[in-house]
């Protein structure tokens, strides 16, 4: 396995006297697609924000490519790390293409993006199945359509680390599968992907590794194969979940 690109060392996050995270540590290598899971309020988004440089951890260090996050200039960091936010204000009037081109902010030195930047943006939009919306105002797009545009903006950054906060929100089932297939392709190309998700079956189907947060810290950090072999981690989420092994190869978590 190649050298880790993300190193999380013993980080903690305390806000208003409430401990959200403590002693969280793990490494992520290029090519991994990691699902970060946990119940509401487990600190999943906070963890992603800390890795993305949006929040300073109360304790501990995050290093990207062997360099502590605090030492990165924002523009340099944005060429390596992209972050897909959970949601965005709904009343934006700009065109979808303009938002995707914002992903080129750290790459483009000029006032106007070059034709190359435009090409990268269009490729990203095509991959996210949203090039057809490029001239539509964001305010007129549905939640799922907008989500695909946001993902395209992240891909246009050409990151080596892709952080996704619930990337399948608002997506229909077909687009959810499309989204995770895309992430698997990205990981296959050497990007380290960390996705916060609530969908256990999507995670088991597409991800290589699961990190489950509970009680302010990492409760389980395991490869998908191990997760299927010993489903005790499902208790974190609910008592009503069971792994089903049908006739086919894929295992499936069903509700009781």
């Amino acid at each position: 396995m190649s050298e880790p690109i993300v190193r999380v060392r013993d980080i903690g996050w305390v806000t208003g006297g409430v401990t959200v995270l403590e002693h969280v540590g793990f490494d992520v290598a290029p090519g991994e697609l990691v699902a970060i899971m946990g119940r509401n309020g487990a600190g999943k988004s906070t963890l992603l924000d800390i890795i993305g440089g949006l929040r300073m951890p109360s304790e501990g260090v995050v290093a990207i490519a062997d360099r502590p996050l605090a030492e990165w200039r924002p523009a340099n960091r944005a060429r390596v790390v992209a972050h897909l936010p959970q949601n965005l204000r709904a009343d934006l009037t700009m065109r979808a293409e303009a938002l995707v081109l914002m992903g080129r902010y750290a790459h483009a030195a000029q006032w106007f993006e070059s034709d190359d930047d435009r090409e990268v943006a269009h490729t990203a939009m095509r991959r996210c199945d949203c090039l057809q919306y490029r001239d539509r105002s964001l305010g007129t797009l549905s939640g799922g359509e907008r989500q695909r545009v946001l993902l395209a903006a992240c891909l246009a950054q050409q990151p080596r680390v892709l952080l996704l906060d619930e990337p399948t929100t608002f997506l229909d089932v077909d687009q959810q599968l499309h989204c995770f297939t895309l992430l698997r392709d990205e990981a296959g190309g050497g990007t380290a992907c960390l996705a916060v998700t609530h969908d256990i079956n999507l995670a088991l189907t597409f991800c290589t590794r699961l990190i489950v947060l509970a009680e302010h810290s990492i409760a389980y950090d395991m490869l998908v194969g191990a997760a299927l072999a010993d489903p005790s981690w499902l208790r974190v989420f609910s008592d009503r979940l069971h792994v089903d092994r049908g006739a086919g190869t894929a295992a499936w978590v069903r509700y009781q």
Partner: protein
Amino acid sequence: MTAHRPGSFAIWLCGCTALFITAAVVLPFIGPSRIDVGHVWNRQNPDWSILTQLRTSRTLLGLFAGGALALAGSLFQSMLRDALATPYTLGVSTGASLGAVLAIAGNWHMTMGVTGVWAGALTGAALVLLLVMGAARRDRQLSVSGLLLAGIAINSICGALILLVHGLTGVSQSFAISRWLIGSLDAIEFRTLAVYVTVISMISLVTIRQARQWNLLAVGEAWAATRGARVTRALVGGYLAGSVLAATTVALTGPIGFVGLVVPHLLRARMGGDDRLVMPCAFLVGGALLASCDALGRVVLAPAEVPAGAITAFIGGPHLIWAIRKGTTR
């Protein structure tokens, strides 16, 4: 409809520049006393001196004051992600007004060679700026919500103090204060005008050069940060730039309303939300609009003058209602 590429950017920019230059050339000739072009050509008085001494400086002041207000308005609308933000939202202009009102009430005509109203306005603005920054800072970081809360709070305190001072002064000062608070343009010395135009031009250029950063902030602070912008630095810079634009203008003209709100709105609805285009066009159109409103105010009830601030409100208010009814504002 919306501008896509540098090509259509250029068309919009040329159009707005033409508007600005036309206003600069034509408007000085408009006023209660007719100016004969032939007399001006032969440098005959009084036409020549009215044009050069009074009308030209007043028109230039209108062009740059309108430009500064419209640019500051579009800057704050993007930066604060608030479609109703104006150059006055964060309190600096109200601070400037308070300083000016105190100067009028205290009869300070000149302080150290500077007109008392200007000195008062700039001092008031600087104090409010420090107060808002101090109140909004948390953990060495600045957030939009912090700026908005601190700005609005200090805005209302200064507003209350203005009312208080206004109520406690004598009749003649009270009249002068009311008149000043409407906002109007007047001929000013060319030396003062030169300083003002230089300051406004420099700050405007720096602000417009950062347009990509304002575009990012208009989406969100986290969005801007993860695309590679320095958010706190941008917010401090934007707040300072908008404050200097607004405060120096308010010091010279009083708080003229609506230019800073209506012009960016109108342009965004027509050309989309890209600040690389909206900001320079807002400056040019805002300048042309304010100078035109002032010219209109000179003739509409001649020989009486209607202050430019009243004309902009008369035009701006109905326009905004019309725009909202049509659903073109965001």
